[in-house]
């Protein structure tokens, strides 16, 4: 095991039901740095096997601010191009600590399977019993049968199983930044879920320097632009998209962060229990964790109430369907209540298109949307959040800035949303941390090269 890495990629041959571990040399990290660019290199290596790659950055799961992100790379059924989507909360970190930097799923399984990754062991199990269950049930089932509630479960719901273009991947109960139909990709591969539990350990090349550097960066960031804000429900308001916060706030229970992030972005809303209750009660499913500000905005724009928004986002996540596409469908059909669709939601799935890639207002630079359609998920809002990056200006400048920030995040394993609110994180700080942590001879030019590999 190297510094900041396990130096291992897991190659899963789904057709054969076999796994192999491929050693990743330091040269590979020197060339690709990690994250999405490393994913892309592995994707290209196994391109003949129709792969999809899950990977982490060198900084994922470390003390670096916002170091939560894993990245999925594959060909999007929506665009026909190779795209990347982040997964944060504890998903990226858990993957890294399983002892695999990357997972390459190649080929297609004859029957439903799930993967169980733990302690550098990968088991492929039959998932016939899970097929047909929703993402919440899969998460519960795997956590119960494997005996640990902290297992992170990447899964697909009914939409993915049916191979619909609107199918998303879920992480545990919640949506991730999948805008590319990766749910459909997994569904076609017959992969119902990937369960992760990471109890690994990572060395640092210069431990004291790395920790001290991260600590100082945290101190700077937490007293900076983010200090007056809380929750992702502030994003639309800050971006001038309307008053989302006052609209949803009466349901807000509390906000929590993804791993290693000082900003508590994820906002839990309660609609089956008084939102002010902090103590544990018998209500098993009191509400929903809002992980996607754009989805909340889209539901509001479709005319739903705050409570119905929570319920519909829950329903969408259970079925593994993109909530932006659901919102677009509701808007098109003039449906403004949860009760109008909750009964026959499964029947509705076939009619939901693959709209919703770009939810923000038309005045948000179109070039940014263009760029997003090529590579990165629009889970990341299109402008700086709370902070002045002294870069945003015209349409092209903003798009270039957005693309650059996302590129750096996707390559290193930092949450791309956090990258939009922390100007303290830049090429130099990333390189300093990477060099202290990994001892690789990385430079800003290497980062440039890795990002360029993604966006051309």
């Amino acid at each position, binding site marked *: 095991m190297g510094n*900041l890495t396990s130096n291992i990629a897991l190659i899963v041959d789904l057709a054969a039901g076999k796994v192999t571990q491929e050693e990743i040399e330091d040269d590979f990290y020197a060339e690709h740095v990690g994250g999405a660019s490393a994913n892309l290199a592995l994707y290209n290596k196994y391109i003949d096997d129709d792969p999809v790659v899950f990977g982490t950055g060198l900084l994922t*799961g*470390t*003390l670096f601010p916002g170091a939560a992100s894993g990245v999925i790379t594959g060909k999007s059924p929506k665009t026909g191009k190779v795209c990347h989507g982040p997964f944060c909360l*504890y998903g990226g*970190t858990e993957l890294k*600590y399983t002892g695999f930097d990357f997972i390459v799923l190649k080929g297609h399984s004859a029957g439903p399977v799930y993967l169980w990754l733990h302690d550098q062991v990968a088991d492929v199990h039959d998932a016939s019993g899970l097929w047909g269950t929703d993402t*919440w049930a899969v998460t519960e089932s795997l956590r119960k049968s494997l005996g640990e*509630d*902290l297992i992170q479960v990447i899964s697909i719901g009914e939409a993915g199983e049916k191979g619909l273009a609107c199918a998303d991947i879920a992480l*545990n*109960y919640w949506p991730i930044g999948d805008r590319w139909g990766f749910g459909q990709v997994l569904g076609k591969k017959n992969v119902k879920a990937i369960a992760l539990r990471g*109890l*690994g*350990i*990572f*060395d*640092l090349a210069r*431990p004291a320097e790395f*920790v001290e550097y*991260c*600590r100082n960066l*945290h*101190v700077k960031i*937490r007293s900076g632009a983010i200090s007056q804000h809380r929750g992702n429900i502030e994003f639309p308001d800050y971006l001038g998209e309307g008053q989302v916060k006052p609209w949803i706030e009466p349901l807000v*229970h*509390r*906000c*929590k*962060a*993804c*791993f*290693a*992030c*000082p*900003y*508590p972005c994820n906002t*839990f809303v*309660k609609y089956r229990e008084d939102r002010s209750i*902090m*103590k*544990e*009660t018998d*209500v*098993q*499913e*009191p*509400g929903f*964790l809002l992980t996607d500000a754009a989805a909340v905005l889209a539901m509001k724009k479709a005319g739903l109430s705050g409570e119905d928004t929570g319920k519909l986002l829950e329903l969408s996540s259970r079925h593994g369907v993109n909530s932006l596409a659901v919102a677009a469908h509701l808007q098109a059909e003039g449906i403004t209540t949860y009760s109008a669709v909750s009964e026959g939601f499964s029947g509705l799935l076939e009619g939901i298109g693959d709209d919703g890639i770009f939810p923000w207002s038309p005045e948000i630079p179109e070039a940014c949307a263009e760029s997003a359609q090529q590579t990165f998920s629009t889970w990341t809002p299109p402008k700086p959040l709370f902070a002045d990056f002294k870069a945003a200006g015209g349409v092209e400048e903003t798009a270039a800035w957005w693309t650059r920030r996302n590129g750096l995040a996707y390559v290193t394993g930092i949450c791309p949303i956090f990258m939009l609110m922390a100007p303290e994180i830049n090429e130099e700080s990333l390189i300093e941390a990477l060099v202290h942590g990994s001892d690789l001879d990385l430079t800003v030019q290497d980062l440039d090269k890795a990002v360029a590999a993604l966006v051309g």
Partner: protein
Amino acid sequence: MELVVDPLKCIECGLCELACGYHWDDALSMIGASVVAYRSREKKNYFGMLLKTEDSLILGRPEGIEIQKIGVTVEGAEADPSAKPILLREPCDMCEGFDGPLCVQFCPTQAITKGA
């Protein structure tokens, strides 16, 4: 001096766990941390913090702070004097050898602080 936890301020970022794990292992790992962010009731969004000290487990939950004496299983009883320690998760030593407890330094919300 001991650490004080305020679970209502905790945002579950896990930085305390990783910083503490680093203190014990000189590497990035969470398995040996003396402090743990409680995340097991994810669907309920329930939360809390666990801190192991020399002789107690401090459970910080929304319901309040509970202190359990290690080795004591019956309310009001005392520890078995012949109980042998389990040496897997070290009790907090306030980061001996560091400039103050690392969990306190990394916590973004002051959910864990140095007591008086």
